[in-house]
């Protein structure tokens, strides 16, 4: 196959006469081209392409003989014949001037700067000089209509119906001239009666000749085409016979020699290609060439010229004749005009002959192959030895520094080598004397390769020209395919021949008794296929036992007939003999879209090329700058599995299809090929106008059902098919409801969503809504938020008025699983609630009504203070947070935004969001609320509550984000119900797990809960540290040379793939003994995070520094400070953002329980502080009826802190420093509760009992705790707490700031006050090492 590439080149011709070109013909060697215009003959040299001679006929000659018409070369290129319109034949002589004289020689300038630089500009191949002159002009009876050269004679067809034979000297070979009126014509040679042409004025308009076919293809002026043949190549007029082609609109003809084909171009744009039937001698249609309607729309008109692109062109004329890659595609061997060279892709170097004369002394012919031997790879080639004038096989080793004949193995052969092939160590050589020889390669003792001839087969009995054998290859394939042999691949050496497109298998049979070499004989050849261009045999070394069918197949490319595969069929185990009627191999045809270059047997894929044409401007100056086509070649691949499946299923060989498919399930395109199979059968059968007696679709569905991708395949096929075909598809055995249910059962929710579309189209609306609801539930359960969101849209999109209609109404544009489309884009305007429903204005009464339960309303909040921001507003706030964090604004500024009575901070333009939030509160009053709508809301509400109750805050966050729930208002109502935290410890644990948020690390205390193994690991790491010591400066006073600090995060970055050491276990323990901030860890996936957020985090640090910057600090406080700094550095920034976002939400909603948990997890002491002051202000501002509830809240908060401190002491030492820092808040809270409590004793007792039981449980209760407990609640003094924060709070307390909204001022004052105030040492505290605070934080 030949494809044009790049642009056409426009050749420059000397400007002499008429520019109208009539005929272009190259000579037999394809070195010279004759270009004939009406009055000028130009001879071009091919490489380089330059004109070498040009003659224009004078006016007198033109007038006398007429314009030029056709041109023909003499085979030896020494003469040219030209026919003219007035019936003359002119002969021109072309001759080399001499070997010395050249054309276009270039003489460099004397100025050095103007000389040629690059070596390639000094052309090696010079252009020889020619002389062209007219030798004679002779008249022909009534004018020539066709011209063809046979050997040394010219055949000239004339208007009288004659074919005249001229010698090149101009004399007529009168005895061998033909007269059409005397040639018998018939449809084939067996016909009893052959009739000459009797119609007058019938003559040949075009004639082509092939010695390999032994005849002429002729086109008659009446549109008929025929083939003229004779018993001998002499073409005795009495023996010549005409065979009609069954056509009457022939315009032109061309003969393919090698494949023995006659092609006739026709008026209808088609070209019919014929072979000659061997038995009848008639013309038999082989195939038809058609221009694709895609590239050539309309009617391009009659075929005007046909040319076969000759195989032998590249091989004969181009400098590059052969190229071959080795098996690993790392080395290339190329053969040019003479010699060959090697190229290595890995080193990008050429390997050439050391001695150039050796290279020039032989021409590679027949083939170039890589042979891998035990010692080293060799290059095998057939070659013609110019010096010795003989044909040889040569083998050169690859690995020598240079190519050298001294290391080459030479085997002389008897004839010109035409084909060369290899299988294993056996070399097949086909020579021009029609002999196929087999050689074995062996490595002799000295490492040299040796060839020994083992077999010789004479194929001259096939009775054809030697050139008609296009391919010969050795193969292990045979007719009877044995089941998989356990002892490895079969080494049977059969021979496959491609003779003129017909593939013959010559099977080698071993003698039955003795195993002598000579006992093998070859059976008579059997024809496997015809019209074959290329064949691929399996590599016997690469037979895959899992895919025996595919790897033992023979692949045939049959040109216009597409592809064929000769597939083995293995008998089923246990039922031998039952399938005796079945042939052991089967030939399956299928069509191709690409031209195949290679078959990947195991991968079940074809690699090929396609051509494409782009229009490019040639240049600005050309007249039609946009009409120059650029032809490009594109490599492509094609999956063929489905063709094989289909063919086998059609033949009731589904078991074999299944066997093949079973081996291919791992292929990435396996499910795609099943889809293709289903799609093709469906399209074909569903659109068939006639009833199909035995439809294939049920069997195909049955077949696909055998594979786990069945559900996906069916729905994807359906989605790519017209809706009109769905009933046919699902009527053939697949019930969409069942399929939907199966998807649901197997948790393939996206697939289920795809089936929903089908249900929507095929079932009543009520049914599809029901299924959608079920799926929505499942999607929520599985945290498939995008899907759930789409489903809600889907459900909302159902027009209530359609609910009872049985007509499917769904537009199939919806694609679940794809990226979320812009908000509301799928909703028809009339049902889009967004525009009609105002954003939530919470009305607790509605809420109660809806939920049907008594709501314990959180008391004292004035309606105004509870006013929840709309979803838009809340996104604004959150956006602000995100921005503020990245802009390193102290967070407290935003977090302290006053919740009561004040306007939210000015919003920046918020992101485009879905304008209609899901109304999980359902407290709006929709204009026309349908039950389904409410039901859907109930589903969502139920789920949100379930998530909250279970403490799944991350999922809650995702759900709220996807449905744009106004979480704050909802949460504030739920704070005494679902938003209550009953078990704070497990809540914290849950957060750590859900957000993969690392637990804080203990630096100073021995770790208890680690396994022995981990500890040993830790020790190892510490041992390692010795090697890795010394590094960047850190300001710890203890070690002047702190070790290299590795980053650590909770997510293990490289988990071991198969067992081994679990790195996860290392994470929390990687603290060296040294009491400093050094930290060991295994590195980090979080690099980019820290890079992105470094500045921000630094600022956070400084913020904390300033807040906590006291002049002296205890050791514990120091580690607390480090604990404060640590988490943002280490952790996943995304998780931190999410946690902070939630903290903000819960704080706004007054859900202090969760807010506390979040603040703890974030180790955000300021947030805890704010929560406490919020509690305080709630208590001071609340109305008496609600006081009890508020007090309960405060109490819970305090108890939570107590419980968590206890937990930190006993179970999670990492939290201890932080808990110590915030511990003072317990006192404040206690103090808050007391004045309002009617029975302080009971409360005290309660608190006491709780904490006492806790302290009893562990026995390691921190001193702070006990201090607090023992201090009378009404006598809490500043001095009781030595922690700066607490002192700060004490100060604040004195300042008497009532509003929680004033947290910002509070912080500032706190900073000032703590900085000014010296720490007062608590007398009953144990002595504590004091350290400068600066060294810890800076």
């Amino acid at each position, binding site marked *: 196959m030949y494809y044009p590439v790049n642009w056409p080149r426009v050749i420059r011709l000397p400007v002499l006469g008429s520019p109208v070109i009539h005929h272009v013909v190259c000579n037999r060697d394809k070195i010279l081209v004759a270009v004939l215009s009406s009055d000028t003959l130009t001879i071009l040299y091919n490489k380089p392409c330059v004109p070498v001679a040009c003659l224009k006929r004078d006016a007198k000659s033109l007038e006398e003989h007429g314009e030029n018409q056709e041109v023909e070369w003499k085979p030896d290129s020494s003469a040219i014949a030209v026919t003219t319109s007035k019936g003359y034949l002119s002969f021109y002589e072309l001759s080399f001037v001499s070997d010395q004289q050249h054309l276009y020689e270039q003489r460099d300038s004397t100025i050095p700067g103007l000389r040629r630089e690059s070596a*390639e500009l000094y052309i090696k191949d010079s252009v020889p000089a020619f002389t062209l002159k007219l030798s004679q002009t002779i008249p022909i009876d009534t004018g020539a209509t066709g011209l063809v050269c046979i050997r040394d004679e010219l055949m000239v067809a004339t208007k009288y119906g004659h074919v005249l034979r001229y010698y090149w000297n101009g004399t007529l070979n009168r005895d061998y001239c033909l007269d059409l009126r005397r040639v018998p014509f018939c449809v084939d040679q067996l016909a009893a009666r052959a009739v000459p042409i009797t119609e007058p004025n019938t003559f040949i308009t075009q004639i082509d000749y092939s010695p390999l076919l032994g005849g002429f293809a002729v086109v008659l002026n009446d549109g008929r085409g025929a083939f003229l043949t004779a018993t001998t190549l002499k073409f005795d007029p009495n023996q010549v016979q005409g065979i009609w082609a069954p056509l009457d609109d022939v315009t032109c003809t061309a003969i393919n020699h090698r494949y023995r084909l006659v092609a006739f171009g026709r008026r209808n744009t088609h070209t019919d290609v014929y072979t000659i039937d061997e038995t009848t001698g008639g013309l038999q249609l082989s195939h038809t060439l058609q221009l694709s309607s895609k590239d050539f729309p309309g009617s391009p008109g009659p075929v005007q010229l046909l040319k076969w692109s000759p195989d032998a062109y590249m091989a004969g004329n181009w400098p590059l004749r052969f190229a071959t890659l080795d098996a690993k595609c790392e080395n290339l061997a190329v053969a040019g005009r003479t010699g060959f060279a090697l190229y290595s892709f890995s080193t990008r170097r050429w390997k050439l002959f050391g001695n150039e004369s050796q290279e020039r002394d032989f021409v590679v012919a027949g083939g170039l192959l890589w042979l891998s031997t035990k010692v080293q790879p060799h290059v095998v080639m057939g070659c013609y030895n110019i010096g010795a004038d003989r044909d040889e096989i040569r083998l050169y080793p690859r690995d020598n520094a240079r190519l050298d004949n001294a290391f080459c193995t030479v085997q002389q052969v008897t004839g010109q080598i035409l084909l060369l092939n290899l299988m294993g160590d056996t070399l097949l050589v086909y020579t021009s004397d029609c002999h196929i020889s087999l050689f074995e390669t062996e490595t002799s003792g000295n490492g040299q390769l040796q060839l020994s001839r083992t077999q010789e087969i004479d194929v001259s009995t096939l009775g054809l020209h030697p050139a008609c054998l296009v391919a010969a290859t050795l193969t292990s394939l045979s007719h009877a395919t044995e089941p998989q042999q356990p002892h490895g691949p079969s080494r049977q050496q059969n021979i496959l021949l491609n003779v003129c497109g017909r593939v013959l298998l010559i099977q080698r049979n071993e003698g039955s008794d003795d195993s002598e070499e000579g006992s093998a004989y070859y059976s008579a050849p059997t024809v496997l296929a015809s019209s074959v261009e290329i064949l691929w045999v399996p590599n016997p070394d690469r037979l895959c036992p899992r895919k025996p069918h595919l790897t033992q197949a023979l692949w045939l490319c049959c040109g216009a007939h597409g592809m064929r595969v000769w597939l083995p069929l293995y008998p089923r185990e246990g039922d031998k003999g039952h399938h005796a009627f079945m042939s052991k191999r089967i030939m399956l045809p299928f069509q191709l879209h690409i031209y195949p270059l290679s078959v990947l047997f195991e991968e079940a894929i074809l690699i090929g090329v396609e051509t494409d044409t782009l229009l490019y401007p040639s240049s600005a100056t050309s007249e039609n700058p946009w009409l120059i086509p650029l032809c490009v070649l594109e490599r492509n691949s094609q999956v063929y599995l489905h063709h094989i499946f289909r063919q086998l299923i059609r033949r009731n060989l589904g078991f074999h299809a299944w066997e093949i498919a079973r081996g291919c399930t791992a292929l990435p395109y396996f499910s795609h090929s099943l889809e293709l199979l289903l799609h093709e059968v469906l399209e074909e059968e569903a659109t068939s106008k006639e009833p199909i007696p035995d439809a294939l679709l049920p069997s195909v569905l049955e077949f696909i059902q055998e594979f786990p991708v069945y559900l996906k395949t069916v729905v994807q096929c359906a989605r790519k098919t017209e809706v009109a075909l769905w009933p046919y598809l699902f009527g053939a055995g697949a019930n969409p409801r069942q399929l939907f249910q199966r998807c649901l059962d197997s948790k393939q929710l996206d697939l289920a969503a795809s089936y929903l579309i089908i249900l929507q189209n095929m079932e009543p609306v009520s049914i599809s809504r029901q299924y959608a609801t079920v799926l929505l539930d499942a999607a929520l359960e599985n945290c498939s938020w995008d899907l759930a969101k789409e489903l809600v849209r889907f459900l909302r999109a159902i027009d209530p008025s359609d609910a009872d209609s049985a007509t499917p109404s769904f537009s199939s544009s919806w694609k679940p699983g794809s990226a979320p489309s812009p908000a509301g884009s799928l909703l028809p305007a009339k049902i889009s609630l967004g525009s009609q429903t105002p954003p939530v204005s919470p009305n607790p009464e509605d809420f109660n009504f809806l939920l049907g339960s008594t709501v314990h309303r959180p008391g004292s909040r004035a309606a105004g203070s509870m006013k929840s921001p709309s979803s838009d507003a809340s996104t604004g706030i959150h956006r602000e947070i995100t921005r503020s964090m990245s802009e390193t604004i102290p967070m407290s500024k935003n977090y302290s935004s006053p919740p009561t009575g004040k306007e939210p901070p000015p919003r920046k333009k918020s992101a485009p969001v879905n304008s209609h939030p899901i109304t999980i509160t359902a407290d709006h009053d929709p204009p026309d609320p349908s039950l389904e709508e409410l039901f859907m809301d109930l589903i969502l509400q139920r789920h949100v509550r379930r998530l909250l109750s279970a403490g799944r805050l991350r999922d809650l966050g995702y759900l709220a984000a996807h449905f744009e729930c106004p979480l704050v208002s909802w949460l504030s109502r739920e704070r005494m119900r679902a938003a209550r935290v009953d078990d704070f410890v497990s809540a914290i644990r849950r957060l750590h797990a859900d957000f993969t948020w690392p637990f804080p690390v203990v630096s100073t205390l021995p770790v208890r809960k680690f396994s022995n193994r981990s500890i040993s690991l830790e020790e190892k790491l510490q041992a390692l540290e010795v090697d890795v010591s010394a590094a960047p400066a850190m300001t710890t006073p203890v070690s002047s040379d702190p070790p290299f600090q590795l980053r650590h995060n909770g997510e293990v970055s490289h988990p071991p793939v198969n067992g081994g050491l679990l790195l996860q276990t290392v994470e929390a323990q990687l603290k060296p003994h040294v009491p400093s901030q050094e930290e060991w860890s295994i590195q980090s996936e979080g690099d980019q995070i820290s890079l992105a957020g470094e500045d921000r985090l630094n600022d956070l640090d400084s913020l904390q520094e300033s807040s906590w910057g006291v002049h002296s600090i205890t050791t514990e406080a120091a580690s607390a400070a480090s604990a404060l700094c640590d988490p943002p550095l280490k952790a996943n920034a995304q998780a931190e953002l999410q946690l902070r976002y939630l903290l903000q939400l819960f704080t706004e909603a007054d859900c202090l329980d969760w807010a506390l948990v979040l603040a703890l997890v974030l180790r955000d002491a300021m947030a805890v502080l704010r929560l406490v002051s919020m509690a305080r202000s709630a208590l001071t501002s609340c109305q008496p009826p609600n006081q009890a509830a508020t007090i309960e809240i405060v109490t819970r908060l305090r108890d939570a802190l107590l419980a968590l401190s206890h937990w930190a002491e006993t179970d999670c030492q990492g939290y201890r420093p932080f808990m110590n820092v915030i511990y003072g808040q317990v006192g404040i809270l206690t103090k808050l509760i007391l004045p309002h409590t009617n029975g302080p004793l009971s409360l005290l007792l309660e608190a006491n009992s709780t904490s006492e039981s806790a302290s009893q449980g562990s026995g390691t209760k921190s001193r702070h705790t006990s201090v607090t407990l023992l201090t009378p609640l009404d006598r809490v003094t500043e001095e009781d707490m030595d922690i700066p924060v607490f002192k700060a709070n004490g100060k604040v307390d004195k300042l008497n700031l009532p509003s929680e909204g004033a947290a910002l001022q509070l912080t500032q004052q706190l900073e000032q006050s703590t900085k000014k105030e010296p720490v007062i040492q608590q007398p009953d505290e144990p002595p504590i090492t004091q350290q400068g605070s600066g060294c810890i934080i800076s």
Partner: protein
Amino acid sequence: MIEVTANLIGGPVYFTGDKISCRVTFSYVHQTSKSHNSYVQTKDSGECSEVLGWASAQVVCICSINPQKVLVSDSVSNSSRATFNSTSLSPRAGERGLVIFSTKPKILVCDLKLPDDSCSEYIYEETIPSNLPPSFRGQAIKYSYKLKIGLQRVGASVKLLHVPLRLMTWQNLGLHSCHDEQEIVVSNPFLKTNISMNSELDDPLESMQLLTSRRSPSIYKVTNSKGKVVSLCLFKNGYRLGEDIVGTLDFGDSKVSCMQYSVTLQSQEVVPEEKRCRIGGQQSKLGDESVLTSYSKHHEFCIGFLQTHLSLPVPLHVTPSFDTDMVALKWRLHFEFVTAVSALNWNGETAWEPPKVTDIETMVWDLPIVIYPTAPAHVSKALYGACEANILL
């Protein structure tokens, strides 16, 4: 013995900003009889097992500067970013050049016991930052990247395993603007995860696709003192690795006969003026200022054509255009036109004879172009490079 194999998943070529994944396999290998028995074998209750003390991995960039071409000042070495200079595995260990970048070492294993005939596999992953120079083997400066795996068997010395990798950069493309916009749009942190993890990588690939697929035909009218030689049309001036540079040449209405031409794809390694080494205090000769390397060539004897075209492949193994403060790599098309001193005669009355000898002069022209990288997987295939390395301990 322990055999350690490191295999770069997905090939040895990466973009900056890419995540490198390397599969490191430790396997127990039986000592062959020939090898000496000097290794300590831990025997645990009769069973053979090997113990690997530790293994750690990091990616380093080594810069080798040719002191004859580049002025190596103290500031250069001081400004280097090699701050992690004192781990047990100094990234400099065994390197001649300057380590200008290294990732923090990650510990792969500690105290790994390998029982008889077992192996264990680890995945090392590291993200390469975006502000690095590309892999480049120039005359003045070489930047090379490798993954270094340090290994120590109990009782033996530290061994290093090197896996070379190739880094491509996409600097100067102005790509990050659209990315930033996205950041702003998404405000809810629970929605942010929808952005694909690879977006940073996809974007430049997409942008490069856009940059290099856009056609903006430029027509160059090539003339010498006697008049027009050719109209050359190139359809763009930015090309990706592996792409073909195609253009058309039109000799149609030229005054000057062009006998032949050649086009060479050349790279120019340019050291900035102030960094250039001056031999004996004097600036080196004019021609030595940049190092020229020629790659693919297209040559045509074009006197017989009125219109023709050129096609020049950009090899996959070359380094795309880049610029650092030490060196810049520029690309150009170097044209040589061989023209006839006096225009050839194409006219005649009844016969025409081709010229036998023509006086010619050769002139050159350079056209700067930009070479962009392409998908790393594509480059990997063409490199035939080892993405695997192993060592026996």
